[in-house]
């Protein structure tokens, strides 16, 4: 187990270091998130009261759209020089590879989301600092859902001609349950409602989803990558 973890961390470290060197995926997805926030604001022309109602939804939409770009890069990065082959030929089990890539994606997505949140707060005048603790928890749990499903499907679609299209087409519908939960919770939190028995249900959905799909991901990544 300790070896497994060390291998995962090595993989994650490698991804983060490569990304850190160029910052391209992160910069691009940040720019992208900014662009879609602006587009949303044009499209919806939101007045402050409405904003209250939408905030959670819009925020997670931005996370989803910008996140897909990060996830897309994740395994695509391994294709450049056939690096994936070398990783699979090494004694690292595919599950460790999966967890490693998921951890790196998680770090990137969380960074992305925090910046988005700040942008969002400023552009749409949403006060998110009030409930920041619970908000972070919701973001952390919701983002893991996106990460784990996204990473597996990134591995699954990496050899397709239409990779950049197939990933969102497969992942977004699957993200409906956790996204709904996250959207509802976030809207509540931004409106000042605390986490409590009233929305415990949604927390449970998120945690349950995370657990089930992490398990599925770890068990099936071998099938996806090697056969």
């Amino acid at each position, binding site marked *: 187990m300790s070896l497994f973890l060390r291998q995962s961390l090595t993989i994650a470290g490698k991804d983060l270091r490569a990304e850190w060197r160029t910052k391209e995926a992160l910069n691009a997805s940040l720019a992208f998130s900014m662009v879609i926030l602006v587009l949303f604001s044009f499209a919806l022309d939101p007045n402050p009261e409405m904003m209250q109602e939408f905030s959670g939804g819009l925020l997670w939409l931005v996370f989803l759209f910008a996140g897909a770009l990060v996830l897309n890069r994740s395994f695509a990065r391994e294709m450049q020089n056939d690096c994936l082959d070398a990783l699979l030929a090494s004694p690292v089990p595919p599950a460790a590879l999966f967890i490693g890539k998921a951890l790196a994606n998680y770090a990137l997505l969380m960074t992305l989301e925090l910046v988005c949140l700040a942008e969002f707060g400023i552009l749409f005048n949403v006060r998110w600092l009030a409930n920041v603790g619970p908000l972070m928890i919701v973001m952390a749990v919701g983002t893991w859902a996106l990460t784990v499903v996204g990473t597996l499907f990134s591995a*699954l679609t990496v050899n*397709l001609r239409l990779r950049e299209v197939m990933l969102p*087409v497969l992942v977004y*519908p699957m993200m*409906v*349950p956790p996204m709904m939960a996250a959207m509802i919770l976030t809207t509540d939190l931004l409106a000042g409602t605390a986490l409590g028995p009233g929305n415990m249900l949604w927390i449970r*959905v998120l945690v349950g989803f995370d657990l089930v*799909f992490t398990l599925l991901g770890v068990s*099936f990544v071998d099938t996806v990558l090697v*056969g």
Partner: protein
Amino acid sequence: MRNRIMLLLTVAFAALLAWNLKNILLGLPDEARQDAVYRILYFHAPAAMVGLTGFGVGMVFSGIYLATKNLYWDTLAASTTEVSLMFAAINLVTGSIWGRQQWGVWWAWDARLTSMLVCWLIFAGYLMLRRAIDEPDTRARLSAVVSLFGTVNAWFVYKVIEWFPRLQHPGPVLSFRTGGKIDRALETPFYWNVLALCLLAVVLVMIRMRQESLTREIDSLRRLAHA
């Protein structure tokens, strides 16, 4: 032999459907509130049942494929999912028509409706993935994984959306769920029609199976010619 079975099933389906139609259209009284339209229920709900069950069955076949690596099971899984997708589409379309008649709109973002749509999209993604991969083994392997993830997800979608705050769609009416909300005379033809649609599903799956195996044969012959 296979042809004989198929013919038999087709005849059984046709006879049963004719008999059901006679009962439903001529034997049943019009409903007080809805006039004659409520009869759409006899196709609307069974289509959903057959479709959703079909996705589950498809997942089982996919699992068997992963265990045996026999392409027969993959073909079966694909055919089943495709036919189920068609039944889900029938449910959506009949529902929309009914909704137009009852609610005045084609669509409402009601929980039940949305969950069906999301399930449909998930498995539409499955079929699209199959189209995007040329090599039969890879296609079988990856789409089996998508089928597994999709079905588990569809279950989540179903459970979670039930808790979604907006409900417009009628709740369960069948007696085995509610302990007798619906008139026996209205209910019996319903089950017969479920059986009829099941027969249709089996026939369609068999036809698809044959087409698929022919396609595969042609494909490999062509590849041999081109090698």
